[in-house]
């Protein structure tokens, strides 16, 4: 009986460790229905760059600001500035940097490090037909 109990205990420990490894590392819980606030940083960056590129296309800084609210950042202009400076510092894609700098400037956050990247002409916003 002792032999059986000792083996059972050993199996429990081994099985428990294996279960924890599988449940935490190999097949961790995948969350769905998450808020955009919980997005991984690289996806937040991607989203911000896309919004900045949208701004370059339509020149709608107010709309861009509205869309950045999705990320639930406290200070959207400061957030854009931080990403822009990080992209410049890390020598990311120039196209991304151009867009981010343009949006930062539109939000009143143009800093000296952005100056070399601000030779972008942003189209003037045109009134949209049919909008109330």
């Amino acid at each position: 009986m002792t032999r059986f109990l000792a083996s059972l205990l050993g199996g429990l420990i081994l099985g428990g460790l294996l279960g924890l490894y599988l449940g935490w590392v190999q097949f961790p819980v995948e969350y769905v229905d998450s808020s955009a606030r919980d997005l991984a940083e690289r996806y937040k960056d991607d989203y911000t760059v896309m919004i900045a590129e949208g701004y370059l296309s339509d020149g709608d800084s107010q709309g861009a600001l509205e869309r950045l609210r999705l990320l639930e950042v406290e200070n959207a202009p400061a957030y854009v500035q931080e990403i822009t400076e990080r992209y410049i510092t890390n020598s990311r894609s120039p196209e991304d940097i151009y867009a981010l700098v343009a949006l930062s400037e539109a939000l009143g956050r143009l800093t000296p490090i952005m100056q070399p990247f601000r030779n972008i002409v942003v189209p003037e916003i045109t009134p949209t037909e049919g909008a109330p």
Partner: protein
Amino acid sequence: MTDQLQEEPKTGATPARPSVDQQRKARRSQKAAKRTSDSAPATKPDAEKAAPEKPRKAPASDPADLSPAQQRRRSRYTRPRSFISRWGVALGLVIGLAGGLFYAWSINPQQEFDTAPWQLREEDRQQYLVAVMLSHPYRNDLAETLQRLIELRFPNDDPLQLVADVACDLARTGYVNSSSGLRAIRQMMMFYQTQGKSGCADSLIPMGDEDAPDVVQVVLATPTLPPPASKTPTLPAPATPIPAETTAVVIPTPIVTTSTFTIVDGPRSFCSSEAQGVIEVRVQDFEGEGLPGQPVRVRWDGGESLFFTGLKPERGPSYADFEMEEGRSYIVDMPGLADPSRTPMLAEACFTETGEQSITSYRVVFRSN
């Protein structure tokens, strides 16, 4: 057994295999002999100890005489016993594995991090898709755009039709109330229409050629009924010709601005013990006169509220207010009439001039253009 062995040469027959009963008897005698030898005093000479073991070795010296089942049984009893119970280990593994998985998945799951866009809730995924669509004209890389759409893992397998479906959904909501939302939907429509797809947004939102002016029909004159007949004779009418019918003139006009109202003041924060966390809105015409019955909308994360001016006559016809919840952030607009406020209004704790704790309130004034 000795008798049997002695008799075999007499018969001259082939030595017969021992029967099962004989084998059992032999084993019993072996065990008995072993017990005897084990219980014997240690002072016995070695020759005496070894003597009883001879019959034990006899069956092992010729294993071919045993059937396979007997051999297995025999080895099972003779081999050294393992320190591990296979059943115990297996049972422990199963229970431990189940318990470990239950703990790792249910009791203490891994904290959420590294969330991908496909894990977002439906509304946020739609907003992410809008961002992808807005960046498409700048990047102009269809493959990359499609890849991003696929990564969102909407139920729709066709990413192009997905854009049409999302545009349809957004066109049915208040998303189109702002010019930026309308522009985004048109961008999506342009994207899927060029790929040969269609959706309900096509009928809900006209694509609108921005270069073409709107045509507004203006009626310059209204028909006047002839005066009723009077008892007093009237002088003959002068010979001035009266136009027989009114004319309708069509005047092309350029596109007008989108917003009817704009925020001319605010949101200005103030701290008062009487108004705790209140958004005070006033809507005025272009001369500053109060306008009752104007819709005002306040939005926050996960909700919105629509109310109208003039429902508190004691505060004037232009007045409307909304009570905020502490800690939340709000924006205010007039749906379809004015763009949202630029800065969010945060209902945070504040202290009045008298030192009382309260919640920050805001004042906003909309004025007609």
